[in-house]
């Protein structure tokens, strides 16, 4: 068994940038991604701000080298996965045993909801089948795997908002069990009417730009995008032209087992996930140099997460921030996107800012980092992802 899984590179596309470099620039400039809805066709336009990827499907398809009629979720996925692969500098993908483990929450729903308008009028003939051909979550993964020539292992994980983090965990296990040499792992989700309306019925969407970890927070903003890391074995890490970014030293998945959508007040699942990841990495809480929190901006999430962090870390907290204050909540992609940000944080000593913070929460009065800083000494960074159905996951990235 290979002892470690290393991060060889990463790629991101989201509401603040079409690639990782653009995202970093946005963090430096405090340029957040929330705007009035521009690309999603919905009656809620003008009401809820969202962090859309600033390109239509035709432009994304050209960038992805895929047909424009495919799900936006697949187009975003390809763009970020390709960037991740190129960042690793491993060259010809056919030279390796490669796995693609991608997460998403609603597959090709953006096309299915278009189909349903005509289909419901005339179930036997209405709607173009092409629109539902790739409805399944796994189909989105395969469109990208096939386009990139990935054949040795393909899998798709869907655990709501923690999906992307669980993809890294499974990917790391594939490497440690020597089933493949490389895994591109992360997640993707495009905005859909289905999810926008779903979160709206839960009354957790903010009509203002969201304010994670802030006492004035009143909900989340949805975002979209994709983020992937390239995980490699010890042997391959030693051969990387630029060396690995860092290693995935710990991970854990736990369940809150409290409610289908809400988090327990004390954040039991969150606590167990963070604690499990620390145990695996052999670290103490004080070893963690920065936490990229789940931090959606809902009342419930941020207080539960805060309570869980308090239980584990009090009284001394490392810098924390929610990058969702820039990217919005990208659901199945968020664990992947934030894994890339966190892995890069270790490599470059970055602490990301938390936008719009003014007032500490009553439940956990800790002020997040509010400005971008690079060159910090960061040996270990934690990334949290928590989701519906109690699914909680934490990842720890560490220097080599």
């Amino acid at each position, binding site marked *: 068994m290979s002892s470690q899984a290393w991060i060889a590179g990463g790629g991101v596309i989201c509401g603040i940038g079409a690639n990782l470099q653009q995202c970093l620039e946005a963090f430096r400039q405090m340029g957040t991604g929330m705007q009035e809805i521009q690309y999603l066709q919905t009656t809620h336009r003008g009401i809820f701000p969202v962090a859309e990827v600033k390109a239509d499907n035709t432009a994304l398809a050209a960038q992805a080298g895929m047909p424009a009629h495919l799900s936006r979720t697949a187009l975003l996925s390809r763009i970020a996965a390709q960037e991740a692969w190129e960042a690793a500098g491993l060259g010809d993908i056919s030279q390796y045993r490669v796995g693609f483990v991608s997460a998403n929450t609603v597959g090709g729903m953006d096309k299915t909801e278009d189909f349903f308008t005509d289909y419901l009028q005339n179930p036997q003939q209405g709607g173009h089948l092409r629109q539902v051909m790739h409805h399944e979550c796994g189909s989105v993964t395969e469109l990208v795997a096939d386009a990139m020539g990935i054949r040795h*292992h393909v899998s798709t*994980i869907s655990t709501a908002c923690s999906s992307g983090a669980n993809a890294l965990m499974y990917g790391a296990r594939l490497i440690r069990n020597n089933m493949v040499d490389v895994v591109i792992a992360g997640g993707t989700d495009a905005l859909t009417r289905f999810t926008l309306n779903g979160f709206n019925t839960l009354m957790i969407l903010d009509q203002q730009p969201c304010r994670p970890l802030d006492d004035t927070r009143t909900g989340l903003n949805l975002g979209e995008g994709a983020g992937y890391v390239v995980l490699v074995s010890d042997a391959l890490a030693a051969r990387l032209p630029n060396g690995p970014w860092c290693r995935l030293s710990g991970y854990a998945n736990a369940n809150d087992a409290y409610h*289908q959508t809400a988090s327990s007040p004390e954040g039991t699942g969150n606590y167990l996930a963070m604690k499990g990841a620390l145990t695996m990495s052999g670290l103490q809480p004080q070893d963690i140099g920065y936490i990229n929190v789940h931090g959606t901006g809902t009342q419930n999430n941020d207080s539960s997460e805060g309570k869980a962090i308090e239980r584990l870390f009090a009284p001394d907290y490392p810098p924390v921030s929610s990058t969702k204050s820039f990217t919005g909540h990208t659901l199945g992609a968020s664990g992947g996107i934030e894994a890339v940000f966190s892995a890069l944080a270790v490599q470059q000593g970055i602490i990301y800012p938390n936008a719009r913070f003014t007032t500490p929460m009553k439940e956990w009065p800790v002020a997040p980092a509010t400005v971008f800083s690079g060159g910090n000494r960061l040996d270990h960074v934690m990334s949290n992802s928590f989701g519906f*159905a109690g699914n909680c996951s934490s990842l720890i990235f560490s220097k080599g």
Partner: protein
Amino acid sequence: MKIYIQGTGCVSPQQTAGAGPFLASIQEYEGNRLAAVEPDYKQWVEPNMLRRMGRAVKMGVAAARLSLQQAGITLPDAIITGTAYGCLQDTGVFLSKMVTGQEKALSPTAFIQSTHNTVSGQIGLLLSCHAYNNTFVHKGFSFESALLDSMMILQEGAVQQVLAGGVDEITDHSHTILSRFGLYKQEPVRNTSLLQSATHGTIAGEGAAFFVLGAAKSPQSIAQLAGLTTIYKPVSTEERDAAIQGFLATHGLRSADIDLLICGHNGNVEENDTYAQVAQTLFPQTTVAGFKHLCGEYPTATAFAAWMAAEILKQQQAPQDIILSGSAPEKLDRILIYNCYQGTHHSLILLSKP
């Protein structure tokens, strides 16, 4: 390291969720859609909670409970589900209301229950289980990925008992749409003669099968989960065959060591060749059985096959109604399941006597 099946539970179009003998009589159906025979869920779930659950969740919960019961445990160390379609019923409800009501006056219930991880999440919630909880949603590899994750986690040594399963449901919407893709037979069809069919198409199925997988052998052990592999879109029959032979070699086996080959024949004449080739060229001496005439075709049907294989090993007898070629095996030490979902997703699951 060896992994043992400590308990199984199955909800399917057959009488599998009751206490009756294993596949004592085959449920016969006419038409291209088999519906699961659903048990009385109230024995496991409170009525107010049950009302909110879609069928995929209910079937999953029932199969999970049955398998835990048989294994004699109440709290697994991990819960891992494979489901290709997820919770179609609630997805369809929310989607239809959203489209017809133009995004107005929606209630959250269906959305809340629509996420793919609802089955695993609800099982965790019902068991108050804070352990590892994961959901794989990859077409014909969904159940296989759940098993692989279980095996890797057990091999790490930190957990002792994993609850793993596969579940998928049919809804009116999904059946209508998949029918438009030409998946199912158009002419009258009986499930009992499905595997002898010489026409295009199959019949739709659904169900849930869960397993308690343990790292240690015990008196409860029904079978050993000896191996698993997936082969994604092999470019040639040679590549496929080499992968199958490689799998056998990895486990130190020759094809003659397989006492029963359970294949995924689904009655679609275009898909028969794959199974015929594999059976005839790679397993010429092995008795071949089918299972999709019992459960129908769906992406996680291999979970039903694994349940059936475990039962056969336990009973040391293969029902006559499943044998496609060869005679009833004289010994039943090893069973190999070979499935090829939609011509692209090949999987092998090896079970042996504990």
